[in-house]
């Protein structure tokens, strides 16, 4: 016990701040979700679970969930597949590989606001690089209003999210690949394995834990994306890119319905916990060792 008394000073400042500015607000969030507070007036009514039924019926809320899922699925597929393919080329510790890994990592260190501006410009229908390039190579029919078309805007932003984070995922895959013993790869080659056999029979089973980390990190990261969507479209056009986090933000700070926004936050927390749980079940890989 004496030992813990001596350690107490190390715990107290951090735990106190964490309880006051993280745990306490999270709990009061649940409380607000049961009220009709507008965020400004000093008084509010306790409305029970009204917000929960109203938000669940709200068409825009439902649309945000669908958009969130679209965004998440698109980002997870693109980000995982592209970073894996690139990491496979970059796993050897050669100078050119190290340089390429650094180059691919650069977007990760830029702010989402900068990335959002960069790509709003690239996607600009008349002045942007993307349509300009398509026209230059004779694919004028492929040009789009990338952020203005309600059918594709959410996927245009998903592509940017992947662009910004592939470099980070490459680092994870490369670490996984470098942990694979060289002898295994060599002996499989001596046994005459083709490159594809080598990948599917030897490398992939050993890389599965790294892949599980990439997929689960990407899922959560893309599910809670906010800055990029907020910067590029703010949820528009016609709510086609509204996701849960912009829905919460807009309900609270544009429409001043704090109670409703808090309810959406609780739903958001439940959804993200559910996804984490599903993933935990699905990706619980038995580590392979030879």
């Amino acid at each position, binding site marked *: 016990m004496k030992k813990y008394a001596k350690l107490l000073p190390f715990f107290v400042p951090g735990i106190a701040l964490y309880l006051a500015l993280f745990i306490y607000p999270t709990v009061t*969030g649940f409380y607000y979700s049961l009220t009709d507070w507008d965020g400004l007036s000093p008084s509010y009514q306790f409305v029970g679970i009204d917000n929960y039924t109203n938000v669940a019926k709200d068409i825009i809320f439902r649309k945000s969930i669908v958009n969130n899922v679209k965004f998440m699925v698109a980002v997870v597929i693109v980000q995982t597949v592209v970073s894996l393919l690139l990491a496979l080329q970059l796993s050897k510790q050669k100078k050119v590989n190290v340089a390429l890994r650094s180059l691919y990592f650069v977007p990760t260190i830029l702010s989402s606001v900068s990335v959002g501006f960069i790509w709003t410009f690239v996607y600009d229908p008349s002045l942007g690089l993307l349509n300009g390039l398509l026209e230059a190579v004779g694919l004028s029919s492929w040009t789009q209003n990338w952020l203005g078309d309600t059918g594709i805007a959410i996927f245009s932003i998903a592509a940017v999210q992947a662009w910004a984070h592939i470099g980070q995922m490459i680092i994870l895959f490369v670490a996984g690949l470098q942990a694979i013993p060289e002898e295994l790869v060599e002996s499989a080659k001596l046994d005459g394995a083709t490159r594809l056999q080598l990948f599917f029979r030897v490398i992939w089973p050993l890389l599965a834990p790294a892949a599980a980390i990439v997929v689960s990190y990407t899922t959560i990261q893309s599910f809670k994306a906010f800055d990029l969507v907020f910067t590029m479209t703010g949820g528009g056009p016609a709510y086609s890119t509204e996701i849960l986090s912009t829905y919460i933000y807009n309900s609270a700070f544009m429409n001043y319905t704090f109670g409703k926004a808090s309810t959406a936050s609780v739903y958001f927390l439940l959804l993200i916990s559910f996804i984490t749980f599903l993933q935990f079940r699905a990706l619980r890989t038995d580590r392979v060792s030879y």
Partner: protein
Amino acid sequence: MVLKWLGRLLLLSFAAVILAPLLIVLFTSLKTTPQFYANPLGLPESLSFHNYQSLFDGQPMWGYFRNSIVVTLATVGLELLLAGFISYGIMRSGKRVGAAVFGLFAVGLMVPSQVNMIPIYTFVHKLGWSNSLTGLIIVSASVLLPLSVFMLSGFMKTLPKEILEAGEIDGAGEWTLLARIAFPLSAPYLAATAAFLFVIVWNDLLFPMLLLNGKDKLTLPLAMLQFRGEYITDYPVLLAGVVVTALPMIALFIFLQRYFISGALAGSLKG
């Protein structure tokens, strides 16, 4: 053989996908507005720093830089101290107490900022900390504790216990052990965590947007959102803003790559 060339083609194409948007932004920021509208995708005819000039003339850019630097350095410094203390405490506690403290913070890893941003906003306003850089620093440091405790205590677990025990036998108190042994031995880990946090805080939009509103208090990402309102039709100036705010980060990255990359590796494992 075919696969090998396909692989190289893939590497080159992706390098182009990364570089092209960055270069077009740089080029555009060096064009005058008429040049840009005449030829939006071409190379700049001559280097014009006019956009940078008008950005710094029209905006208190140095003030924004100062705010971002103050907030980032103070938040990351405070964070390393708080989370370093807790991780040290976890390492030195017995199994049960250590696991309980770790568990308390692990709960926070599950809660994204979007979930508690509203109550944090109202609480900070009640405390009278709104529009204060100090308030933002304390809030950001508290909100990042789950992540940093996770990263640092993961690192510290790998420190050799014998050295600390030897110090204890020699009569060193906990503070001496922390300052003379645990922190110095963790220096590379502290640096990796710092680099990871640095990127998060420097680039954060949500909390500055919730807590700051005075023009003299804005951080760079927030200021950029405001520029957009002012330069909506003026891509060259807007993109000069992107270049100016990205440069310090890119310079840091070039010099401290190792820490950025090991930090990103450790920080991504929390999923």
